[in-house]
Every structure is written in C-alpha cells, then in structure tokens.
C-alpha cells in the first residue's frame, strides 16, 4: 500500500470516527428516544463481525470447524461462564475438530 493511499485511508477513517463522536453523538443525546438506537447499533455491528469472522472466507460462506467452536461458545455464553472460559471453550473445540478431520 503506497504511503499516500495509507494516509488517505487513515484520514477517512479518522473523520468518520470524529464525526460520530462530535456531530452525530450529540444529536442523538438531545433526543433521548434515540439513545436506544445507540444501544442497539453495536449489537448489530458486532453480530455482523462475528458472522464474517466465523462463517465466511473472503466473500464465500463457509461452514467449518469455526462453526463448531462458535456453537460451543454460544452454549458457554448461555451458561453465563466468564469471557476467558468462553474463549478457551471455542478455541479448544475448533482445534479438536480440525485435529479429528
């Protein structure tokens, strides 16, 4: 990546981040009904990131050992186990499936 393109990428991302903090954020704060929007936005975005990391390879949908790990993680989350346990359960079950196949 050329230096100029890298700087343009970083600048564009910086502008988006600052606009969210200083322009859009205060608008939402003045309208309390909109605060629930701000609550739910990260849920949607984080869910999408999980799907992308767990069930895709580039632009192809893939069902592999990661799905097993995430299913195990979902059970661990449902059982209210701490984050570190959730992560260990996910990683070890994914590793075991890969070992077996």
């Amino acid at each position: 990546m050329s230096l100029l393109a890298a700087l343009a990428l970083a600048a564009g991302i910086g502008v988006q981040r600052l606009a969210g903090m200083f322009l859009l954020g205060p608008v939402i704060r003045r309208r309390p009904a909109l605060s629930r929007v701000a609550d739910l936005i990260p849920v949607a975005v984080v869910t999408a990131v999980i799907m992308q990391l767990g069930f895709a390879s580039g632009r192809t949908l893939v069902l592999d050992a990661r799905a097993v790990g995430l299913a195990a993680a979902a059970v661990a989350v449902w059982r209210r186990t701490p984050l570190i346990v959730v992560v260990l359960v996910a990683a070890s079950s994914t590793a075991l499936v890969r070992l077996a196949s």
Partner: protein
Amino acid sequence: MISFSATSQLAFVAVRAAEGTVVAALVSGWLVASRFGVLSITLSNRLRVRPWERAAAALTAVDPSVALAIQQPSADRVRAVYWRITAFLVVSYLSGITTGLVLGSVIGDIRVWGLDVVFPAALLSIISGMLRRRDGAATAAVAAVVCVVLIPLTPGGVPILGSLLGLLVGLRLRPTAIATGPG
C-alpha cells in the same frame, strides 16, 4: 497501524490484490471502517470528558472497548473501563505483531490451535448482556441473517453496514429481559 483498523487495511489490500483501483480499495477500506464511526456515536453518549479526551477516544474506539465501557453504570466507570481496555488492546496489538514476527515460524498456522475463533467468541461474550434483552436479541438475529445473505453478494463492508437493518426490528420491541439460561 495509524488508523487502528486492521480490517480496513485488509480490505484495502484485498481489493488491490484483486486488481481493483486505488479508489475502489479506499472506498471498501472506509466502508469496513464505518462501524468505528457508529461505535463513536455510542461512546459519545456515555463518555463525559473534555473534548481532547473525547477525540482520543473516538480515534481509538474498537468493538470490545466500547461494548464493555457502555455496560458500566456510572460515567466515571465508563471512562475508567474504556481506557483500561484500550491500553490492554494497544499492548496486545503491538506485542501480537512482535510475537507474530518472532514466533510465526515456530507456532505455524494459528488455525491448528483454533485461535481464529478467539476474536468472534470474545465478541459474543461481550454482547451477551444485550442478547438477554428482547430488543437486543431480535436486532442480533436479523443482523446475522442480513449479513450472511449479503456476504456473497456485496463487497467487503456492505454486509456489516446492512446488519444495521436489525435495528428496524429491534426498535419495535421493548428493552425487557428475556429469561434465559441457568442462574
């Protein structure tokens, strides 16, 4: 590095590798990063500090730090947790690169150890509080479906933006708790 958005850099490199133009690569990098602008909106609501500190927070906001910070009950706690997680992430990010360079050839493929599910599993655990709320669970369910449908159809970044459609359903429901799981 400077944008603290590894996925944007990956998107940029991926488009360039597929012989896309610099402009197309930049746009997809920005699209992938749009979630950080959204995270800043959320953080802006809960972080009550001076402008320079708000700017610094906006520029470093990532999913785990924002998600954990906004679950805190008081403004002081939001601020403390936000910076503690951010410091932890910066240290891990830098030491991760260093460790990768040194141990890369020793450990080999991280997939053997299942390390590629660590990030999504941690994210799942982090949003679990919201998933126990009726509106949060509905939002996540719709977001997941929309994202999976869009992944093969649209360029990188669009599936993540499309997941915001989940809010259309989530906002129609009450933010009441769902009785799930033991305890």
